[in-house]
């Protein structure tokens, strides 16, 4: 009989891997399968396998690589058994060949930038872009997302399913946009991240913290995946600097205006990080060191 009181070490490892690498695994799967629902289902299958398999044979060298390999195999199984699948045999054969040739992954290829652009594609309804981004790249469950949107779990589940089905049916590509469309498409991504942030900000520190942290995580992720982009740096800086004041913003349920805030309660590590990004963003725009310094002067002195 299972002793439910003692933590199962394998379950703990699986939960930890999924917490850290779920987005990366989903992105790698979605890029290959071009079907987000299938990617989610296959990853879930692989997690269930891992729970029994790792308990018997011990942990694999690369748990992430193991999950990806098994999830791909599970996806092929699902496609084979699904008589309604619209995929043609040639595509399935190609997928199976790729899967067979691929050695177990030591490092998972990072396809998350492609997935961000897919989730925030302008062909998807704006609210669904937020929900989809939080679900696939952030760490939130459908139930948690429903709660922040004040929707029922069922309605949010249906919204997510519709968005995923449209991606597959209309073939919204898993691709980084070409340079011509980069600025517009990047704005769409940044708007999604910023709306997630403002939604958390408006809800107040007590309830909105998760969303603010998700937005910060997503903005940092975007900046890591596509470094030296002034627009991304600016957006990340804005979120960092606003977040840095979260602790001082509300006292006893009352909003404290900026000038009256206790600066000791500001998070200075976040402020410094934000300031450095603003400097980098301004430098990117070829303003030259002196003009950017001039621009930054009032800004930096304000926060000192």
């Amino acid at each position, binding site marked *: 009989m299972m002793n439910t009181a003692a933590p199962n070490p394998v379950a703990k490892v699986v939960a930890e891997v999924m917490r850290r690498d779920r987005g990366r695994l989903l992105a790698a799967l979605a890029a290959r399968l071009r079907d987000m629902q299938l990617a989610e289902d296959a990853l879930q299958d692989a997690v269930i396998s891992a729970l029994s398999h790792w308990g018997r044979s011990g942990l694999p060298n690369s748990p992430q690589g193991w999950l990806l390999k098994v999830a791909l195999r599970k996806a092929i199984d699902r496609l084979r058994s699904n008589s309604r699948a619209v995929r043609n045999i040639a595509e399935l054969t190609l997928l199976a060949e790729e899967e067979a040739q691929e050695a177990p992954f030591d490092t998972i290829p990072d396809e998350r930038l492609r997935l961000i652009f897919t989730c925030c*594609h302008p*062909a998807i309804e704006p609210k669904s872009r937020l929900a989809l981004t939080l679900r696939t790249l952030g760490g939130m469950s459908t139930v948690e997302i429903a709660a922040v949107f004040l929707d029922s779990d069922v309605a949010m589940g249906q919204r997510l399913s519709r968005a995923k089905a449209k991606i597959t*049916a*209309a*073939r*919204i*590509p898993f*691709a980084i*946009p070409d340079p011509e*469309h980069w600025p517009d498409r990047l704005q769409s991504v940044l708007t999604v991240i910023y709306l997630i942030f403002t939604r958390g900000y408006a809800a107040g520190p007590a309830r909105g913290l998760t969303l603010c942290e998700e937005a910060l995580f997503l903005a940092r992720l975007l900046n890591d995946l596509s470094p030296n982009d002034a627009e991304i740096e600016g957006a990340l800086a804005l979120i960092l600097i606003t977040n840095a004041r979260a602790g001082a913003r509300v006292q006893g349920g009352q909003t404290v205006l900026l000038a009256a805030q206790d600066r000791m309660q500001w998070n200075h590590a976040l402020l410094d990080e934000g300031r450095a990004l603003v400097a980098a963003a301004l430098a990117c725009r070829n303003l030259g060191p002196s003009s950017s310094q001039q621009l930054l002067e009032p800004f930096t002195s304000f926060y000192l």
Partner: protein
Amino acid sequence: MNYMLLIYSDPAMDPAYGTPAFDAMMKGFFDMNTSMKADGVLRGGEALQGVETATSLRLRGGRTETMDGPFAETREHLGGYYIVDVPDLDAALRYAAMIPTAQWGTIEVRPLMHYNPAA
């Protein structure tokens, strides 16, 4: 993947025949036809005659009802279409943006199923 680019516009907004705007529109269509052919993506397309020529039909309770006019009473009407064979939605949207009518009307982009009865 085949996509249909459905061209909707308010006929009152369409440039009048014989005006420079009309010539510019026709040149726009001609140029896009040429480049779609050169790209090898064009599978079909037509312009429709005006909505005043439209007849709608439906069967209700076993009876045929035939009506003058298009299905929906809207300002924007379906005026024509293209069918393009391209890899994904982004590519389809690129061609949709080349349609001159996109500047005053709306292009609806819809993936096609594989049910072409004439094929």
